[in-house]
């Protein structure tokens, strides 16, 4: 469990996060949305001790990020994937970059070898082991950043816009990766400006000016946002989601307390057309 207790944070001048109380339970998938500069990245970096609060405390499985030895242990079980992969990649080659993270958690060599093969396949970079990291394209770097955290296999995954540089087909593949992680009981916290990626999350948080304004099931949160003149300015609600909400509103389909996946929604529409 990740617990934030009355957390405030500043980079030096004004307060960026203001008195946040938040709890992420084991096995949950939590989505984070909100305007540019509202504090999403800052919040995620506080969750694995990359940043330490100015006031309040962050606890991960009972350990505190502000105690140095515990901070090390926390980093092993909570992996943060950077918004800009270039800030995360440390190796000279793809393989070295993956090894770096795994050595930190003390994995045996055989296991490292096995994982390198596995994660590169997972993210569609098979055969890139010996490639220099500087020779990767933008999207390839992002895949490597994801792969190096997958290789460590932490309990908590903190993803900061992990698909932003991926093409639509690769983005779909990433959703499969998320699904596998969830099936194996991992906890996921993910920031995204693309709500279609967060359809299946358990809770959606809306961050605004350093505070958590909404924390609810995605359907409920999105309906609130749609009805709020200020919040809706910053959240791109995809046509498909607005469409489902409208179909329900006008009684064309039954009201649901979850968002339909792509294939489900398309099927619903086809069925609807057939009944006319």
């Amino acid at each position: 469990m990740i617990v934030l207790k009355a957390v405030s944070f500043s980079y030096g001048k004004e307060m960026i996060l203001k008195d946040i109380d938040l709890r992420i339970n084991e096995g949950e998938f939590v989505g984070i949305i909100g305007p540019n500069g509202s504090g999403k990245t800052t919040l995620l970096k506080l969750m694995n001790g990359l940043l330490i609060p100015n006031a309040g405390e962050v606890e991960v499985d009972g350990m505190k990020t502000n105690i140095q030895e515990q901070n090390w242990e926390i980093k092993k079980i909570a992996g943060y994937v950077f918004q800009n992969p270039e800030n995360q990649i440390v190796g000279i080659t793809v393989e070295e970059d993956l090894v770096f993270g795994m050595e930190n958690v003390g994995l045996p060599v055989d296991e490292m070898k096995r994982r390198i093969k596995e994660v590169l396949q997972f993210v569609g970079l098979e055969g890139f082991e010996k490639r220099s990291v500087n020779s990767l394209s933008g999207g390839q770097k992002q895949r490597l950043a994801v792969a190096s955290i997958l290789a460590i296999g932490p309990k908590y995954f903190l993803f900061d816009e992990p698909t932003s540089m991926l093409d639509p087909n690769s983005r779909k593949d990433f959703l499969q990766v998320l699904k596998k992680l969830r099936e194996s009981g991992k906890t996921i916290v993910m920031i995204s400006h693309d709500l279609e990626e967060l359809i299946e999350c358990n809770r959606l948080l809306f961050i605004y000016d350093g505070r958590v304004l909404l924390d609810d099931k995605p359907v409920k949160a999105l309906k609130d946002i749609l009805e709020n003149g200020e919040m809706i300015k910053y959240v791109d609600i995809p046509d498909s989601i607005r469409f489902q909400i409208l179909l329900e509103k006008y009684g064309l389909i039954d009201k649901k307390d979850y968002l339909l996946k792509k294939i489900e929604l398309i099927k619903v529409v086809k069925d609807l057309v057939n009944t006319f």
Partner: protein
Amino acid sequence: MSILFKNVFFNYKFAKQDIKALENINLEFKKSTISVILGETGSGKSTLLQLASALLLPSSGSVIVEGIDSSLSETSRYEIRKKVGIVFQYPESQFFLDTVFDEITFAPKNYGIKENLKDIVLKIIKELGIDEKLLKESPFNLSGGEKRKVAIASVLSFSPDYIAMDEPFVGLDKTGKNRLVDLILKLKDQGKGCIIVTHYLELLKDIADEVFVLKNGKLISKFEGKIFFELLMNLKRLKFEMPTFWEILEVFMSSDNKLENYIPPEELVELLIDFKKRGA
């Protein structure tokens, strides 16, 4: 006048590795046009933009900008860089100065632009929605979306004839995206050529005059972007994972209702309600 690629090949030489990035590219980017480049990861999009702005030179073939061949001389490349501005895929790779203000004003100073720098900056940050108080911050100490906007501002500030943007919408919130769409449309009206690499297919219907598709370093398709149904069919043919709502619209387009243009969910729901009434 235009940016012309003639039989362009490009290989990266990296240590002992020779990586083929572009193969026999022939195309033209014109002024007053929004050209969008699509393609999967590693297909050569960023390489193409860097060739268009003379940051890279073709391994063979030529890139000719407004009649100037980038392979000719250092002077020709300087001239091209003044005409073609490029916004990098990762904004931080573009930054090198201490403050956001210096970053945005570097290029106009460098290229000897006479206008008042402060005026230029204030106008651009307003259009992009950059908070004025960020001007004295380090560009490295901003949020992801703020960095992206500053990177765009630092190129628009010297008003090049062509603006090549590599994933400019990534990381922007809804307001930021909308502002950028408006700005791109305005640049086109002012006669600029906009070359945009993006993965956001939803935005194509709003901006794309023409679409170029790369795959494994080759240009595999080029089509017009203005007619929605054609756009949709072309993307489908190329096996792109489509926006969900577009696939829903397609259900109506391919049935006998002859929907040709994009309509928003609100209108589609009205249409359905209408169907239901007539059916009953």
